[in-house]
């Protein structure tokens, strides 16, 4: 947390961004498409892990926020293509932030843990069913033929219709928001959130307003999940009720757990790995899920802390400390038995 990022860390992040940015110039369209989906799922996974890895809240219904962003953007681009795309993205963020704030404010003071998780799952399912039933939102067919926008910044107009342009735009937005989230997680707010995850009761005794910070984290997380959805809609150019289905809620969880929830970039690593695996096994008709599942199982068994935990230095416990800790246990047991 207070460790200054070392050269290898900064270098890997920079290298990853460079590789992703250069992709359209040497890789096939299919690869670029997969990478674009991977970028938004990484952002989605990061938003989920702000709750799970940092604050200690499990949301099983994060697809709800993703779908708010996806449908809002799809509707706006279809109905009112003249609206500035940045404004549309801001609207998607704001809409989900309000939803997250209200939901968090209503539920988090009362429920946490598995009860909270189940309730978010239920909320997402209600949204999923509502979307399926809504003719305005295209019911089961969803909204297709979503046009890609033109970015207007004052006198500049940046057309994002081409594959490459929209991909690079997505990359820039993802990098910016990941950077902002990194800053948030590594500063005073991140320290508070991690304290709450470790021990909410102790946190209250150091004067931390636990519920308020949980609601804050939930609001930010909802907003980021929505942004991920908003970026996805013009990329895939179709949204269907599936985006609110629980399978889509499971995706950021899988990606985060695979990459490692205790490392900031764990969810990103997990998302990229899953994307590569899915792409590489796409021709193995029928067995591709089996192969991907097998590899994921292997990773989880070899590195229960996720892929990122393999690269991480373990906190040092010198032998002396462990030794005296063991020695101290004896009188503790002794005193416990004494009346």
């Amino acid at each position, binding site marked *: 947390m207070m460790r200054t990022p070392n050269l290898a860390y900064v270098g890997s992040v920079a290298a990853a961004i460079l590789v992703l940015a250069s992709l359209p110039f040497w890789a096939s369209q299919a690869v670029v498409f997969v990478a674009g989906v991977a970028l938004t799922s990484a952002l989605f996974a990061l938003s989920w892990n702000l709750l799970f890895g940092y604050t200690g809240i499990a949301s099983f219904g994060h697809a709800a926020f993703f779908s708010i962003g996806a449908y809002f953007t799809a509707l706006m681009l279809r109905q009112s293509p003249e609206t500035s795309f940045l404004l549309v993205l801001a609207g998607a963020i704001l809409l989900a932030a309000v939803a997250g704030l209200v939901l968090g404010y209503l539920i988090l003071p009362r429920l946490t843990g598995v009860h909270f998780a189940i309730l978010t799952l239920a909320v997402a399912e209600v949204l999923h069913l509502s979307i399926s039933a809504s003719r305005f939102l295209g019911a089961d067919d969803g909204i297709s033929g979503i046009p890609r926008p033109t970015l207007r910044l004052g006198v500049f107009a940046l057309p994002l219709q081409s594959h490459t342009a929209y991909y690079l735009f997505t990359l820039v937005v993802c990098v910016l928001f990941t950077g902002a989230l990194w800053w948030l997680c590594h500063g005073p707010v991140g320290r508070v959130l991690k304290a709450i995850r470790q021990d909410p009761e102790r946190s209250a005794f150091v004067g931390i307003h636990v519920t308020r910070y949980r609601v804050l984290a939930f609001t930010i997380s909802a907003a980021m999940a929505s942004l991920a959805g908003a970026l996805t809609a013009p990329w895939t150019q179709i949204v269907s009720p599936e985006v609110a289905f629980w399978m889509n809620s499971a995706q950021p969880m899988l990606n985060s757990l695979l990459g490692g929830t205790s490392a900031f970039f764990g969810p990103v690593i997990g998302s990229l790995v899953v994307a590569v695996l899915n792409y590489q096994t796409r021709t193995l008709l029928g067995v591709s899920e089996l192969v991907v599942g097998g590899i994921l199982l292997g990773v989880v068994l070899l590195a229960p802390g996720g892929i990122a935990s393999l690269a991480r230095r373990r906190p040092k416990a010198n032998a002396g400390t462990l030794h005296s800790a063991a020695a101290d246990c004896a009188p503790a047991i*002794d005193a416990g038995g004494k009346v």
Partner: protein
Amino acid sequence: MSPIIDVVGVGMSYGKTPVLKNVTLSVNPGEIFALLGPNGAGKTTMFRVMTGEVSTHTGKVHYQGRDITALSAMARARAGIGRTFQVARVFQEYSALENLVVTIESRKRFRGEPRTGKLLCRPDAGVAAEAMERLAEMGLKHRAATHARFLSHGDRKRLEFAVALSMRPTVLMLDEPMAGTAAEDRQAMSALIDKTRREHGVTIVITEHDTDVIFGLADRVAVLNYGELIAQGMPQDVRVHPKVREVYLGQEGGHA
């Protein structure tokens, strides 16, 4: 001198089992006040009633003349009631230093103390310096970078003490600070508590079942037995109180 904490007629039960029966006691500012009693006497419950972790069924708790019965634990902590736990409770995944930093930052936030470099990730220099000072005071400076879960039991107790102190409490409540520590650690902790009271000017409320240490340390003592207050007063008076002697009968030598 008006009491800093005033507990009036507190009654509590877990289910049908009464744990506290109409307990009335008061703590004066600047003193070391000890709550004694055998295991299961209701000491910890009394503590939890005072810190706001459990709400009383009957009775009131006043702090600095104000009724705080309905205040949450967090609000009481912010108002200046700090506490440690029987089994030291610190942020296990944080280093000793990080434990203090997060506490000091929180205090600065809720007290509205000036903070510099709010937008930076690193804690500001003032926070870091204060954290190191607290660690040095507890003799934990060499453990600053050690994760709390790797600290020895005694070191973890000292770290928790430092965390509680860095809240700059008016009243510091210590729940069995000597439980499970070696004899020499007990003396050191006792000296530390006395020093803290003198240097930080805090009022200390302490529970303990090792009565020997307490009678040497406390200014005033209250004894609980089966949820009832059986004696309250100066250590030398309480020590010879017939009811207290009855409770501790057969433990004359080592325990009162």
